[in-house]
């Protein structure tokens, strides 16, 4: 059967023709790219990608199908998918279905057969922008008009949308290590990494008040990753300030890192085109060791402001562009990293951060 046509239109007018894959329909969002060569399913289900249309740079996607063991949340979070070769046929004993079936099932529109490398170069040079994919409307002009309806990522609060609606618990309730997780769109494996290390975690909705968190009587706080512009999350920043006053071990990842910075009056900014992939080199300035990290962020913390802030110590830097990858609050048991130490997908080099967090809590309660 012949594949249907599909069109991709970028905010700057760039139009690409390709073939339809996944659900038939129209979708829009901010275009971004991920350079990882394995773990597409984990990426697609990562809540931090909410609102994004994703280009996979690696040229074959779908080769090993999809399996229920490889999800980072209960559904696909990307808005749309762009690939060079998206594969219908797959090979993996553990897989349950093909990528095509998976996308159709979750109503995700995708386009393949486009020059993804040219698109990536364009985004690299011109920055992130909105885009629209359609396999039902094949008139670029109509799509350009529709593109205006796609909201701008700057100033967009998305965390509360992907956050859990009701609190839930994981791990051994008898554990002395009790962690309150503020869910702004957490990846499953972050929670696993804590539970595996013996923690009992309770995951709270994004807008949970400090009082409710305290009622759980946690021995530590975890502030999760998530989508959207951190600067639009007043509520989270104020909760974070309250948490810091608690003087309990606190760990933030990605969006959580940005919230920790904002709570210390360090501004965040929208990056030119973000970091997304699993090969980003980071140096731990405390230990001097390097780690290859998984990253997924379109916003960053202002490096100048961090360097000026007297109460903040830079713990990690990116070796490619010297951007801030990790901080800790001087005199307080609070630290955060911009990258994803739970790394699904990606190298396990940074898992030690969970060890450090748990140890910190254990020391604190001892």
């Amino acid at each position, binding site marked *: 059967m012949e594949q249907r046509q599909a069109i991709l239109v970028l905010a700057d007018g760039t139009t*690409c*023709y*390709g073939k339809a894959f996944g659900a038939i329909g129209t979708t829009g969002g901010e275009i971004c*790219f991920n*350079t*990882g*060569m*394995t*773990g597409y399913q*984990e990426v697609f289900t990562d809540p931090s990608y909410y609102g994004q249309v994703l280009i996979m*740079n*690696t*040229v*074959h996607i779908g*080769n*090993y199908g999809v*399996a229920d*063991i*490889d999800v980072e949340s209960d559904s696909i979070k990307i808005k749309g998918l762009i690939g*060079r*070769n998206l*594969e219908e*046929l*797959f*090979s*993996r*004993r*553990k897989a349950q279905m093909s990528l095509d079936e998976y996308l159709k099932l979750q109503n995700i529109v995708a386009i393949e*057969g*486009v*020059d*993804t*490398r*040219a698109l*990536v*170069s364009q985004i*690299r040079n011109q920055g992130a922008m909105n885009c629209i994919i359609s396999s039902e409307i094949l008139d670029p002009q109509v799509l350009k008009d529709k593109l205006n309806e796609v909201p701008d990522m700057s100033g967009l609060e998305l965390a509360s949308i992907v956050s859990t609606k009701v609190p839930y618990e994981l791990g051994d309730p008898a554990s002395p290590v009790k962690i309150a997780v503020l869910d702004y769109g957490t990846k499953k494996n972050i929670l696993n990494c804590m539970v595996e290390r013996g923690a009992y975690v309770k995951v709270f909705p994004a807008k949970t008040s400090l009082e409710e968190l305290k009622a759980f009587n946690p021995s530590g706080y975890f502030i999760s990753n998530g989508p959207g512009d951190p600067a639009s999350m007043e509520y989270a920043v104020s909760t974070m300030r309250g948490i810091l006053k608690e003087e309990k071990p606190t760990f933030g990842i990605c969006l959580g890192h940005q919230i920790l910075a904002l709570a210390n009056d360090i501004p965040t900014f929208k990056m030119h085109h973000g970091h997304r*992939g*699993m*090969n*980003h*080199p980071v*140096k731990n300035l405390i230990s*001097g*060791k*390097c780690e*290859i990290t998984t990253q997924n962020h379109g916003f960053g913390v202002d490096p100048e402001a961090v360097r000026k802030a007297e109460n903040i110590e830079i713990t990690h830097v990116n*070796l*490619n*562009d010297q951007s801030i990858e990790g901080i800790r609050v001087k005199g307080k048991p609070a630290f955060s990293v911009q990258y994803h130490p739970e*790394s*699904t*997908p*990606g*190298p*396990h080099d940074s898992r030690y951060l969970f060890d450090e967090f748990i140890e910190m809590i254990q020391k604190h309660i001892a």
Partner: protein
Amino acid sequence: MPKDSSIKSVLIIGSGPIVIGQACEFDYSGTQAARSLREEGIEVILINSNPATIMTDPMMADRVYLLPLNVESIEQILEENNIDAVLPTMGGQTALNLAKEAEDLGIWEKYNVRLIGVDIKAIDKAEDREKFRQWMIRLGVPVAPAHTANSFLEGKEFAQDIGFPLVIRPSFTLGGTGGGFVHDASELDEALQRGLQASPIHEVLVEKAVLGWKEFELELLRDSADNVCIICTVENFDPMGVHTGDSITVAPAMTLSDTAFQLMRNTAILMMRDLGNFAGGCNVQFALDPESEGIIAIEINPRVSRSSALASKATGYPIAKIAAKLAIGYTLDELENQITKTTSAYFEPALDYVIVKIPRWNFDKFKGANDTLGLQMKSVGEVMAIGRSFTEAVQKACQSLENNAVGLGYYGKSGMRSEELLEYIKTPKWDRIFRIKDALMLGISVNTIAKATYIDRWFLYEIQKICNIEKELGNYWLEELPTDLLRKAKVHGFSDEQIARIIQDGSEEEVYEKRKAAGITRVYKMVDTCSAEFEAKTPYFYSTFEEGNFNESKVSDKKKIIVLGSGPNRIGQGIEFDYCCVHGLLAIKEAGYESIMVNCNPETVSTDFDMADKLYFEPVFWEHLWELIEYEKPEGVIVQLGGQTALKLAERLHQKGIKIMGTSYDNMDIAEDRGRFSDMLKELDIPYPNYGTAYDVDDAVEVAKKVGYPVLVRPSYVLGGQRMRIVINDEELEKAVISLLKHIPGNKILIDHFLDRCQEAEIDAIFDGENFHVMGVMEHIEPAGIHSGDSNAVLPAFNLTPLVVTTMEHYAEKIARALNILGLINIQFAIKDGKVYVIEANPRASRTTPFIAKAYGIPYLNVATKVMLGANKLTDFTFEKKLNGFAIKEPVFSFNKFPGVNKELGPEMKSTGEAIRFIKDLRDPYFRQLYKDRSMYLSK
């Protein structure tokens, strides 16, 4: 940690002559290491006995020793130089073994030399199978059940315990020499014997065979601060059971989930960090159970390797270059990414293309050799292709092979029926992928093939895509071929010629014109290590077809010269031509042109990203070349440096009106065409053996009668004396002709009178249109009848009379003038009863050009290239031949890879490599032995 300033001079050990399992990839790594260290201000001293290498060029190191790779040579070097450290990880297993031997003898300690890049005390556990196993068990890494046996009896006992199928792996051997599968008890005794004999310590590992598991390789770098990163993950198309050097391999891994990949990554890092204390590169191999996704460790190589050379070309990340810097103390985070120049060397390359490597075999040279692929490497070279999909890359790789494939398919008569095919593909052989495609074309299902071959279904689905397009194409004549379908075919790597053959309509050129008219044109994309995430500065490109025709290779306004490479290594055409190409590139730059390299051999220095001004990693295949020429519009193309591969494209270049730098096509054709050449010799009054040509047996017998037996029978236009035979009567002649025509139908057969027991000699020379310069006169130790590539050649002549030498030089000059040579020429002579005959002339760089350049210490390739370009005359140079005594070019063979094949030499070349040996005079005992044995291996 910054550079260790106590290291001021480093000895690099090369890998010696090319043999199967250890080829020019170590010239590439050695060259990179030498350049990398010298750019740090470190003095580099180098030892290698292989004269065809670039690493042994005076420009690559401060001091080069062309000496045999043994401890005596090492001691001599250490005596003569003040060396601080030795880097033994760049020269394959040969260098590592030599370093170990020297270590055991206390030589390094005696001269106060540090070993860098490896922990020599720790490598035993990587090299010794049993120690490796024990080490893995200690680390908690799964391995296949196995026992080490030191005797035949022990081996049999263990085999009984473990059960069949099993593997015999000898300890301390190269490229799996002597190893093999044992499917049942009947095969055990022979395999065990062979394995024990192959091992220098009479030790084999008897191991459970994990046939059908998938195989992966990881290339790692580690620095002195224990930072580790994975440069590349390579997946083998062929499942476990085929040596990785003989496997079709693909990068990035195509069928690996992230969970499975991270398990491998973690395990590989664990292994590398536990392999003593060293900074450098290493390679780890795993087998993966497709059911459970569990893995077992197969081996670890604490050095750069064939795979790391491939990984460097596949990713753009120069592993050997960085490994050398790590060895002298740098940490990864202190170094920059050599491709982007703005980001860190500590990272893991991301690929937005697929590379496919296909090995190149030469079974035709080893009559009686078992051509089933297994644990022991049998291929002599390889090609790599880059595409934006597996289908495109695999078809481009086929087009690179130079074995008449025009894509994945030969389009000749396969002749095999479904059942035969299905049976055939169960055994891995060189043509298995082609037969799998035939099977799919015949409608055999992916499932059935997967069960028969254990090849992952994903690869078979991709080949199925190729078949589907091929079937679709078959429905049309060229005229009515829909543009969409034509585009689809091109996107999936079909060549124009392949399309013409499938539709059985039109020519390659017509398909080309049709698609160009439809706007279906190649674009060039960059290999940048980072999937375009960062801007890269390095001009390393490959072609593909993309919607939108976005081109990344910008054509400069400089005058350009394209150098055609020599493609995959094979017997008769190897590293020596890469040496020539590299020097050509440098000379082109010196002459003020932009140099552009086209080649597809990942083992080479010519495909290093900073050798040419621009590198196109492309098949040396007409369509790709022509489209590139149309795009780059070069001043001209150099075909003299890339061996027969490059030379054979001259005719079409000429037809298209493209300037061939140096000798014209017509004159090259005279030299190549036996008839025209002999007519010319006749005119010049130069003697040549009587000859004739024939197209069938009857003709041949007539000709033989006329020229007189014994006669030399050979096909025209072949490499390395392929299928050449010496016959002494009609009966033998008939057999030879029939066999030849069966393999090369329609070929014009050349029949020469064979000058029995005559002496052979050759001359390499340069002619600039006015001046003639003899680079060297070489006399073969062996009498005629042995291919010149397999002969020991002595420079200068040692036994020929001055009159004979002068006559040879005189003839050579006459020929060069008559052919209007501009650049290089090689002429082969036979001398019988004082009379000099010309046997053949090659209007290009020859196998011996690098040897002469090394022996005399003169940059002949640089001179020759500038002459070809017309940039210089010979009179612009002075030639001072620095050679005391004689230099011998000794052929090196790989017969030990083919048990059961006799070391019998004849007119067909069999050697895989060569070494150089300097002797003071003819009393030299080594020379005397060679001279005494000169007729020992003669087949006739």
